[in-house]
């Protein structure tokens, strides 16, 4: 053991003090005369990467070759440098990490990596903001490496670092200093016209809080017009609340302050009494399952539930994804839920979207074609329906365009059972989808923003007022 420790200590000293000297320290030669020969286990002993000794030993072993300028690999007749630049590595954040902690499948024969560096074993992936879920198919190094050349690997559908630059010259990719990510130009590696990464031509905003309506998103504004929509929505809610407060609350008709106090008192008493049970029952039967509507008509319940329950499910899935990501960002479940190409996520999104769309179509038919006596088609309804329909249609078309642009492999894309056939249809059209994608995205985003902003004003207000009045009415009985 003494011998091993001695070698490790030697290596550590060499690394610390004389990093450039390592390059000239010719490895894998028989020990010089006078020193004992290496035994098998000097090198072939499995290092304990949890210990500092093991980390140093492991780095020394790899650097025996990768510290030398002569360390190259031949790709297409050209020599690609595989040398680790000890100068930059010496100042890198990864200085005290064992090579094998990240490159966990290279120390084998034949000497090659299948999986590449495992960044996610230490670093959690990005959530929905500011990157957005399509980036789950982008390798970390595509953005975090200094080399600006990226390409789409069609086999795996992953965006990776290119091995050759635009002049077809091989690139050494062993730079271990991370990229400066404050640079706005970074996104333009991919998001430009004619890019090789399967990305749209424009940089689009990340999902803001209003996107939770249907998607997993983040509690951020997203972009200024998302923020504006949110503001209008909140102002509308407050205005509605104030309007409601104009009447008498719980017998109080004095100042606003008194009304709020009286209402709060009522709420407190209701919560800590048997009436809470009543309220929960109302929430369960009348709000969630729409018992009153079913009593009216099976058809109306069916149509309403297609829209309402599917929207509720999308909201639930989005919030669940956010919750899982916040609690266990590195878990497989979080990664799977954030990935739009994941089978479950794709099926759920397409199915729920389709249900909402069918519900909207039925409502449109009812209002504009069948026109039964009891249905009064008001323009307020029509705006909400048009916005909802536009949001869903543009959503499906944008999803199909995304499948075309990022060239999702067919066996993965089929789980998007609506958007994938649509994408095959659209791929036949002679349209520059990477260029058009931004427009589709903006139509979808804007119609969603308008829909959310309109919620407190139009008839869709009932999604807040109806549950409230149901609960209050039940209380008054």
């Amino acid at each position, binding site marked *: 053991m003494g011998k091993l420790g001695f070698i490790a200590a030697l290596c550590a000293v060499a690394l610390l003090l004389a990093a450039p000297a390592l390059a000239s320290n010719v490895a894998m030669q*028989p020990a010089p005369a006078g020193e004992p020969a290496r035994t*098998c286990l000097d090198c072939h002993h499995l290092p304990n990467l949890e210990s500092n000794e093991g980390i140093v030993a492991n780095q020394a072993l790899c650097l025996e070759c990768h510290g030398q300028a002569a*360390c190259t690999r031949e790709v297409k007749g050209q020599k690609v440098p595989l040398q680790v630049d000890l100068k930059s590595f010496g100042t890198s954040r990864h200085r005290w990490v064992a090579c094998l902690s990240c490159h966990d499948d290279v120390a084998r*024969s*034949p000497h090659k990596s299948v999986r590449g560096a495992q960044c996610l074993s230490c670093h959690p992936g990005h959530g929905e903001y500011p990157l957005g879920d399509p980036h789950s198919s982008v390798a970390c190094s595509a953005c975090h490496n200094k080399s600006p050349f990226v390409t789409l690997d069609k086999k795996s559908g992953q965006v990776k670092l290119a091995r050759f630059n635009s002049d077809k010259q091989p690139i050494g990719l062993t730079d271990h200093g991370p990229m400066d990510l404050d640079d706005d130009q970074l996104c333009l590696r991919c998001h430009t016209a004619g890019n090789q990464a399967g990305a749209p031509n424009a940089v689009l905003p990340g999902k803001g809080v209003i996107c939770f309506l249907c998607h997993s998103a983040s509690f951020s504004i997203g972009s200024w017009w998302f923020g504006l929509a949110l503001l209008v929505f909140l102002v509308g809610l407050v205005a509605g609340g104030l309007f409601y407060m104009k009447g008498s609350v719980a017998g109080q008709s004095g100042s606003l302050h008194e009304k709020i106090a009286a209402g709060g008192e009522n709420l407190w008493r209701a919560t800590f009494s048997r009436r809470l049970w009543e309220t929960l029952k109302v929430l369960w039967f009348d709000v969630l399952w729409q*018992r009153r509507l079913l009593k009216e008509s*099976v058809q109306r*319940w069916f149509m309403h539930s297609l829209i309402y329950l599917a929207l509720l499910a999308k909201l639930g899935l989005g919030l669940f994804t956010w919750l899982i990501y916040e609690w266990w960002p590195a878990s497989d479940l979080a990664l799977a839920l954030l990935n739009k190409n994941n089978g479950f996520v794709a*099926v759920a999104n397409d199915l729920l979207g389709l249900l909402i769309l069918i519900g909207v179509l039925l409502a449109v038919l009812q209002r504009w074609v069948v026109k039964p006596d009891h249905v009064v088609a008001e323009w307020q309804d029509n705006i909400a329906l048009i916005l909802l329909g536009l949001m869903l249609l543009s959503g499906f078309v944008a999803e199909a365009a995304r499948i075309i642009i990022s060239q999702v492999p067919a066996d993965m894309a089929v789980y998007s059972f609506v958007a994938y056939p649509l994408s095959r249809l659209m791929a036949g059209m002679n349209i520059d989808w990477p260029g058009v994608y931004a427009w589709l995205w903006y139509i979808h985003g804007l119609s969603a923003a308008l829909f959310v902003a309109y919620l407190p004003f139009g008839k869709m207000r009932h999604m807040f007022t109806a549950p409230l009045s149901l609960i209050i009415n039940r209380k008054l009985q």
Partner: protein
Amino acid sequence: MRFGTRHHLKRLNLALLLSLALFWAGPGWAEAPPAGEASWFIDMQRFAAGAHGKLSCAECHPAQEKANTSGPLAKRHPDAQDAKYLTASALRGYDYGQCKRCHRVAWERYNQGVHAAALKKGDLTKSGKQPAPVCANCHDPHYGKARRDRVELGRQQTVICGACHPAQAATYLEDYHGQAGDKLGWDQSAFCSDCHGAHDCRSLQKPQQAAKACQRCHPAATPRFAQYVVHPTTVDLGPEDAAKRQRVYLIWALGAVLSVFAACVVGFLYGHSFLWILRELQHKLRRHGK
């Protein structure tokens, strides 16, 4: 009494829903398995616990040991100057004659089998990628355990043989033999080597040969009995397997037709019941409302 029944049924409902959710395993695709065991490093703790744990390095790697103590190391060992040595597979470059010293019967049977024949011809398997396996492709020389039981060995066969024959492994697991043996751990079921033979690995294309394999457990088996298709897949079928190909197509066709039929019947009945419940709920609500 009545209250009791009601509660019971509610719980039953929940169990039904749960079991439906569990039946649906959910879509997904397998990820590439992690790199094989041809690591540069030896975990001494696992090595000592393995079947070869009492051997020294030199007993199986005499050439390396010799080269290391005399003569230039680079001749026998990966060398930074020689890139080809690093890209070559140590697993395939090893002199497996060393194994014969202790495992003579296995060595001879291997040499009579299809894997050795393919290796001699130098041809690759039909995938065009993987060369025919040598000892260490299936047996872990450093960590392999001794005296494992039948089920453990059998389960490992599904994984190891399945690495190169995935379609066969998948169909085996769908077959009764795989369900009872591999999945539920019944030691009297048949595992890969029980039919195909250990080390010689016959493909059992000829009915007589297949019947002999069946007869090990089913004494009354005839060549006609052996027409049973354990692996309903067309992967790796050659032009000489036209009869099996047709049977596989027949099996698939029947499965497809019946699945569509089942989907239609069950789909119609579920829609019918759902609508019925909605309508009855409405009637009930209206009655209560009055």
